[in-house]
């Protein structure tokens, strides 16, 4: 594995972590949007907040990590992507700021109209953000981002068949991950109705995501041939892994084995992200820029690897502690009205 490959692997690892962890937080927003009025909906929203509250900020940082790695290790590609895809990226940024702040404000705005507004803003921006990010990825993957300062088409680069497919798939995957994780989290609490509600949603979202993924391959075949060649060639093992893991997860959810289903869902989604990267190799911007040509100089890459290694030595134990506390349900309020 070359130095460049190692750094690219870090970018993909960060992106995978973002999709699998923060994706579920976006999906939780989707379910909040769909939760409906009445006590049932309120219970569901409360469960969502208990689950997402302690972890969403840490999950979000994976995106920062990916952006920073990208502009340090592949600066030319970063400039090209952000300037051509300025509209979806701006929308994603707005979605992120609205979603994060609406979520953080929610426990403190009481139950009036402002609370309803916050909930709606949280929900809508949780759908918008993964959609535009997916659409941007679709633009990159289908070779619509040329090198240069806003050299590509500002609209068609992200409003095209592949982009719309990836955007929709992103929303479906987020909803699917969230429903599986929420079923697992609520199963610990013992509220049967809530568990069943999220179980049904996990099954539905999983089915939708699966159908979308298969149908989308047809879109990719006609719209982005090189990507199709990659997905059915070098990336085929990943595509198969994703399908198998997805189907296995549905079976596990069906049999209420939520703990393992959580892992299965994460594997299915990770395989899609990694499969995309493998399918695109050796290009970073298909038809425009190879990974090798895009890479920063050797000293920068070496510094990044050393820095990331050192950082990871501190980060990983900390993350493990956070998730152990969160998954054991230790990070919850015990005094009503007192805690966030």
């Amino acid at each position, binding site marked *: 594995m070359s130095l460049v490959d190692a750094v690219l692997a870090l970018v993909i690892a960060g992106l995978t972590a973002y999709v699998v962890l923060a994706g579920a937080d976006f999906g939780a927003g989707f379910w909040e949007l769909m939760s409906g009025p009445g006590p049932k909906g309120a219970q569901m929203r409360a469960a969502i907040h208990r689950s997402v*509250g*302690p972890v969403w*900020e*840490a999950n*979000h*940082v994976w*995106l*920062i*990590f990916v*952006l*920073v*790695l990208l*502009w*340090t*290790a592949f*600066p*030319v590609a*970063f*400039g*090209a*992507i*952000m*300037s051509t895809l*300025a509209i979806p*990226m*701006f929308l994603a*940024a*707005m979605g*992120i*700021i609205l*979603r*994060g*702040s609406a979520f*953080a404000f929610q426990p*403190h*705005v*009481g139950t009036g109209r402002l609370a309803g507004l916050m909930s709606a803003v949280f929900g809508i921006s949780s759908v918008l953000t993964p959609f535009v990010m997916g659409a941007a990825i679709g633009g990159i993957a289908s070779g619509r981002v040329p090198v240069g*300062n*806003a050299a590509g088409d*500002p609209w068609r680069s992200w409003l095209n068949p592949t982009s719309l497919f990836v955007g929709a798939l992103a929303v479906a995957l987020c909803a699917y991950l969230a429903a599986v994780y929420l079923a697992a989290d609520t199963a610990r609490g013992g509220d049967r109705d809530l568990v069943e509600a999220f179980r049904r949603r996990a099954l539905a979202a999983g089915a939708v995501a699966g159908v979308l993924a298969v149908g989308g391959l047809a879109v990719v075949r006609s719209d982005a041939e090189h990507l199709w060649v990659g997905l059915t060639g070098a990336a085929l093992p990943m595509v198969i892994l994703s399908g198998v893991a997805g189907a296995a997860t549905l079976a596990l959810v069906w049999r209420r084995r939520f703990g393992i289903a959580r892992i299965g869902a994460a594997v299915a989604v990770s395989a899609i992200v990694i499969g995309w990267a493998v399918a695109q190799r050796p290009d970073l911007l298909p038809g425009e820029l190879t990974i090798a040509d895009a890479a*920063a*100089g050797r*000293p*920068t890459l070496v*510094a990044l690897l050393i*820095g990331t290694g050192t*950082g990871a030595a*501190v*980060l990983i134990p*900390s993350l493990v*502690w*956070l998730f152990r*506390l969160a998954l054991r349900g*230790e*990070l*919850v*309020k015990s005094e009503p009205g*007192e*805690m*966030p």
Partner: protein
Amino acid sequence: MFELLPSGVASMALPLGRSVRAIVEQTDLVAARQTQALSFAFHIVLVCFGVAFPALVLVMEGLWLRTGDPVYRVIARRWSRVMLVLFAVGVVSGTILSFEFGLLWPRFTARFGEVFGFAFALEGFAFFLEAIFIAIYVYGWDRLRPRTHFLAGLPVVGAGLAGSLFVLSVNGWMNNPTGFDLVDGKVANVRPLEALFNVQLWHTFVHMTLAAYMVVGFVTAGVYALAWLRSRRDRIHRVALVVPLTIACLVAPVQIVVGDWAGRQVASSQPVKLAAFEGLQRTQTGAPLNLLGWYRDGRIVGGIEIPHLLSLLATHDPNGRVPGLDTAAPEDRPPVNVVRISFQLMVGLGTGLAALSGIYLWVWWRRRRLPRSVWFWRAVVVSGPAAIMALWAGWTTTEVGRQPWIVYRVMRTSEAVTAAEGVPIGLIVLLVTYLALGAVTLWVMRRMSRTPLQIPPDAPPPAAASAESG
């Protein structure tokens, strides 16, 4: 508004027959710079709370652990909830800034990302740790043992400082670009550590850290000073007022010394910027300092001139030589009035805050009590907004003072800007969003403060709490 333009671009737009495209480009540059300034101004206040507020909360919790007095615990818990909300808004407004590296300045990032980016990678880890431990800390009040809980807060303070160090390293690098060579206009021989630890880093870091403690200390004290003036003077309010005020008042006088250090660093590494601080046109020895006034046609109109003071401040020699604006070509100079007025505002407010601190510390030292004058407490109420104004003015000084360069003497801001259309639309959308966000944030803070601060009847002492959970 047009004062904020790099003068090179402003003069470019003057000749008749300019093309529509040139006007659009210029509008986009102005809009991009205002977007950056807006995003930054919003975020930097929250940065202060991310850097300094956790320390304040930990001081309170530490006092509780030492004394077992529940007053400290009640305050620490309340503040930690405020800290979490402000951190969340800071997380997302900081994300906007990282998007803007590509959305507004793609050519800057495309060309120099490999030089300055390493610092941001390290900052990413610091930010990660801060997010992890702030969650454990705020959500863990009831489940972690008191000592463990306190220790879980320490990485929040450390990571906040480290994150700020790495971001300021990039800002320092933009002012003092080192750690690379330009070979035929292309970046080569990158030396990431040299770029990271540039000479501008240390004074900026100390100056900004102290500023963060001043902002948080004065803003927090200001909130409780308002309660104080409304005769809520029980012990709990007194503690919540005195601790942040004491911290801010200890820091404010030190900031003057650090400011002098920062000014001399600028004098040696960016003389044109210093000349813009002071509106000094001509290079001269025994340079005077002008208070107030307006820079026009190469001199200060309506200012109060103090002979030799500028030389004394900049070189610590009353007859020292201070380079003027004339050392740079007109198109390489920053817009003097914006820089100079911001600088004077920062110095003026900083001096005022130090004077306020002097009164507080003097009364405490001589009389062992708090000042009694209503006017003192009114001034404390105002000190919070004043500290934020000083913070904004300071950043305007250094950022506009660097213009027309994005990378000092290497790349112009106009060369870095995006060619994407619609930057002004983005600015308007962002402005509306930030106004709404700022309003809701303040509303939420106010609503949180309406729940009275009081000790719950069954508040456990630390010893009992640790026995309970252990």
